[in-house]
């Protein structure tokens, strides 16, 4: 029972970060029906910004907010220069551009900050909030849950209560019609990218703030697949779906795979493979995911 609880807590803590990255993926998908393969790397770069600012003496939370703003500006620039010139319906060039970004950002971070892992300041304080028997719920996990819920509530407010949020929803629901009613589509999509980058930076920072992890350029490689599986499971255009998906993928990784390991000696290194399988099964059985809107293909 204790073991189960501990695994459940781990699942929630991992799942929350997957949920955050998935939210970033969903934001860009909603805006441009594009999966940003560079999302993980952009988040990693943002986390490095935050770390660097913190090392220069800026208080941690302010450094994090500054890094989020910085990466949002960067992403807005990327959208304007590299993404907007292409036809959103033609996937190959866009996939290639994001893969190019992936290579460049990953390598630049490795050149600037080197490959050696650095410990990231603990955002949420040490110690355990609750201990039930041997199972500990750390403040870190509590912090990540609060962050996810906070981000989602803020996003929901932003999308439903502000003018740009309304424009964003209009564009993601029907690009041409919203252009016809006078919404400036370009800047609205740019706003989506900036928002996604900010959330992605927060996600990466929260992910590496876990005392067991350290920040290094390849830290988000695996996370992207987990997050993509989460986003697909929840439905690629649903924000709350991304959270549900993230928590489910966390459960798969930290509970199901662990029990499979215990009972059938299923290797734990295969948790990534499990995520890929989940991704595949979702796309095969219900491509729209749990909460997404089904796509209609016209000829």
């Amino acid at each position, binding site marked *: 029972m204790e073991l189960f609880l501990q695994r459940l807590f781990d699942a929630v803590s991992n799942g929350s970060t997957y949920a955050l990255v998935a939210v970033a993926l969903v934001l860009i998908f909603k805006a441009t029906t*594009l*999966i940003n*393969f560079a999302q993980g790397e952009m988040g990693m770069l943002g986390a490095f910004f935050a770390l660097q600012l913190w090392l220069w003496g800026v208080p941690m939370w302010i450094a994090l907010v500054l890094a989020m703003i910085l990466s949002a500006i960067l992403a807005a620039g990327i959208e304007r220069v*590299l993404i907007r*010139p292409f036809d959103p319906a033609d*996937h*190959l*060039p866009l*996939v*290639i*551009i994001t*893969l*190019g*970004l*992936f*290579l*460049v950002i*990953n*390598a*630049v971070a*490795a*050149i600037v900050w*080197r*490959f050696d892992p650095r410990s990231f300041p603990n955002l949420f304080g040490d110690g355990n909030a609750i201990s039930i028997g041997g199972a500990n719920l750390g403040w870190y996990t509590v912090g990540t849950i609060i962050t996810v819920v906070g981000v989602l509530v803020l996003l929901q407010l932003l999308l439903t209560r502000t003018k740009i949020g309304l424009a964003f929803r209009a564009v993601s629901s029907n690009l041409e019609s919203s252009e016809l009613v006078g919404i400036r589509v370009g800047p609205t999509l740019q706003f989506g990218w900036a928002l996604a980058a900010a959330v992605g930076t927060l996600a990466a920072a929260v992910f590496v703030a876990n005392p067991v992890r350290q920040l290094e350029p390849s830290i988000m*490689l*695996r996370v992207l*697949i987990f997050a*993509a*599986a989460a986003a*697909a499971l929840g439905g690629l255009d649903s924000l709350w779906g991304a959270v549900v998906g993230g928590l489910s993928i966390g459960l798969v990784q930290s509970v199901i795979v662990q029990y499979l390991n215990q009972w059938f000696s299923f*290797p734990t*290194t*295969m948790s*990534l*493979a499990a*995520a*890929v399988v989940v*991704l*595949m099964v979702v*796309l*095969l059985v219900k*491509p729209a995911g749990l909460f997404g809107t089904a796509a209609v*293909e016209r*000829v």
Partner: protein
Amino acid sequence: MNARWTILAGSPQHRTYKLVTWTLFALFVFLVAFAYVDVGSISIGDNTYNISLIRLNKAVAFAVAILGLQVVVGYTGQLALGQSFFFGMGAYIAAWLVADKDWPVLLTLLIVIPACFLVGVILGLPALRIKGLYLALVTLGMAQVFPSLVKLESLQDYTNGSGGKIADIGLEPPGWIPFDGIAEFLQGIPLLGGYFGDGPIPEKQEERLWKFFLFMLVAGICFWLVANLIKSRPGRAMRAVRDNETGAAVSGIDLAQTKTLAFGVASALGGVGGVIYVAELGIASPDDFTQLVAINFIVGLVVGGVGTLSGAAVGGLIIAIVPDWASGTQSVAFIPERWLQGPTGSVVLGILLIILTFFLAGGVVAGARRLKARIVQIVPQPPSGGSRPPVSTAVADDAADSTDSSTVEVG
């Protein structure tokens, strides 16, 4: 735009043209092999750029893997990007057969090709429903899983885990090839002789040369087979699926069959590339088959030219050489030295990828063809097979221009 020379497809001139260009190409490859068999390097300032057959051999392996991507991405339009999975699979099967079963390395192709084809077909089955970006996501995920797959404890006996599987390749050149004689002859050529080193070729380098020619032969067969596949009925079906899937289905093309075939062929080619890779290096280690390698293959595909066969060769060369040369660049004016250490090759490749997507969507090959079209143009036969006069009048020039995009190219 008028070409300087216009050649009618299928005419005797065309045949001569093909023969001459291919002979020149073969001669060029032959000379390069002998010139750079010893580890040659060019120095510019403080930077050294190595040119040697080791890199060319790697380039051949990459080119075959990218050829596979051409079939599935370039010609069938399916974003199956996890080629490093099959590249690694071929490499590991070959390494295992050579090391533990004492197979000659080229014979392992007999197992690798069907195995990779089969796995490609099986993993391709879900792809019949998963499309576009989603397929890209799944296949990249698969590519990422591969290293942890070979490190599995239950496969330890076959793959030797993270240490890598060492295989004694032992491709000894047969005695009847007079390497020394050829080298002596080349060294005797006035003016150019100096490029071919001096004295007889050491045994180690003879082996390398032999490997290079063998690999080129294997790769050449692959390219030839794929060229024929693309021109055949299944190949036309693939291109139809790429251009308009629904339209292709309506025209009676079996989508499932066509796509599955494309996946199978692509995976098999990935496997062949892997065999060549392991035959060159003598070791298959998990770090050589990461997701980054899969992305490098895509760089090769795009930079070479999507949907062209020669693009695969160019792409293979680029991804084999650029990272190496980038790390050889240790000093550039105005750039602090610190910025030149680390994975600069990936930066260059990534920037190359983005720039080419913007300015030269067809890759290097498209650019080269545009240049070539100014010099030589190959015009298809008029459909009647009649006696159209040789192209020299203004009318015929117009006709040549209008068929520009559909000009059939060889190679």
